[in-house]
């Protein structure tokens, strides 16, 4: 079955696959994680705030993003962004936004919705009694958050954030639909150029598997180490 398996095509294309493809995949993952977390924290704070307008906006944003397939959002933002850019800088024609820039913005905005839900769940996972006990010894809202709620919430959500980052890493492969050279895009271009679909796709699967499997192994270890004995 693997008798006419051409290992050489993989070997030959390694530099292209990793220096171009994987480099973009990792860049996109890193940027979307960092900015997604920042934006997600803001959205979670809006959601938990007492202002009905802010929390209403946060709820709608999160629900909207979470109901739509990422592929659709990638397309939508890709086409939308030139016009948004035009509107922002008041230009008289649509702004050029390349596919790469567009996906970075898309993933940040999309993942922010998921990260904000993780943060909210983390904060709400801290029992109400803990908040009460904090107030009862005389802490104010900020101090209760800083010393009682967030340290516990953070322990609860850190593994989930990492797991979501692994999911994000896998999801970046969807930029394929914009014909971007991420890792899968690179593999696919080689596959079609050389007519070696079997080799290239199996190799891509293996690489993704090894990375995600290793990462989730460490997340599990981390989870055991930082979990709180209750």
């Amino acid at each position, binding site marked *: 079955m693997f008798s006419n398996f051409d290992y050489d095509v993989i070997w030959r294309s390694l530099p292209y696959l990793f220096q171009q493809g994987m480099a973009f995949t990792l860049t996109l993952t890193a940027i979307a994680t960092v900015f997604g977390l920042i934006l997600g924290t803001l959205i979670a704070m809006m959601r938990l705030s007492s202002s009905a307008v802010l929390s209403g906006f946060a709820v709608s944003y999160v629900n909207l993003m979470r109901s739509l397939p990422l592929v659709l959002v990638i397309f939508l933002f890709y086409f939308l962004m030139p016009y948004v850019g035009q509107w922002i800088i008041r230009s008289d024609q649509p702004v050029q936004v390349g596919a790469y820039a567009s996906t970075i913005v898309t993933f940040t905005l999309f993942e922010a919705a998921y990260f904000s839900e993780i943060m909210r769940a983390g904060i709400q996972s801290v*029992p109400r*009694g*803990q908040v*009460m*006990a*904090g*107030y*009862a*010894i*005389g*802490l*104010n809202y900020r*101090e209760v958050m800083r*010393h*009682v709620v967030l*340290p*516990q919430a953070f*322990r609860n959500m850190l593994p989930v954030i990492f797991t979501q980052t692994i999911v994000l890493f896998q999801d970046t492969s969807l930029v394929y639909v914009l014909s971007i050279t991420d890792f899968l895009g690179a593999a696919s271009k080689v596959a079609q150029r050389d007519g070696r679909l079997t080799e290239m796709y199996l190799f891509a699967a293996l690489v993704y598997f090894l990375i995600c499997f290793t990462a989730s192994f460490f997340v599990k270890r981390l989870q055991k180490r930082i979990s*709180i*004995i*209750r």
Partner: protein
Amino acid sequence: MPMITIEKVSKWYNPQFQVLKNCTTAVEKGEVVVVCGPSGSGKSTLIKTVNALEPVQAGTIMVDGLNVTTMKKDLPKLRSRVGMVFQHFELFPHLKIVENLCLGQTIVLGRSEDAAKAKAMKMLERVGLTAHAQKYPGQLSGGQQQRVAIARALVMDPICMLFDEPTSALDPEMINEVLDVMVELAKEGMTMMVVTHEMGFAKKVANRVIFMDAGEIVEDAQKEDFFGHPRSDRAQQFLSKILSH
């Protein structure tokens, strides 16, 4: 002037549901008052209103001459001087026992790390848990955790103490180690408001007993009167139920 005054206090969780109905009572300095009543009658809610952990919609509550119902900025300071012990201990699980005891001292009272630690160890000795100072709450038994929780309140040098069913989440063999600490506190003259069903404790140290039902203070009597001849039917029924064995 009483240490705690509760006057015509009413509270609603939502427009249809009134948990507290026009409650009025007072706790004198050095007095021990036991609050009892069927589950869901509003005991926990009432005791939490005393340090404004639960807001109220009507009435006034005064602690040490200060109106807590209208207080805003100074609330944390006041709360730090009212010790509170919860049914489920509510120790902070991410902090060691000694850190649990130091948190409020350093942040709220502004004590130095060393002074806070010294005070914490003194209180741990008092509740007999010095050996566990460096452990986490999850590594202690329920009775030990509750004694730590009492110590956490005591390190703040409280002017009065509130207890919300401190023994009802404990296994029977651990109830006494917690009650012993409380009895000792009462004997030292601490002002205490205690929600509990431990009638032995009430008979031993309480001055007064308050009986609540459906959000109302049905009976507010001296201990001897309450146990000797309760006036209301509801209190009689309640007593006969919990004293029947």
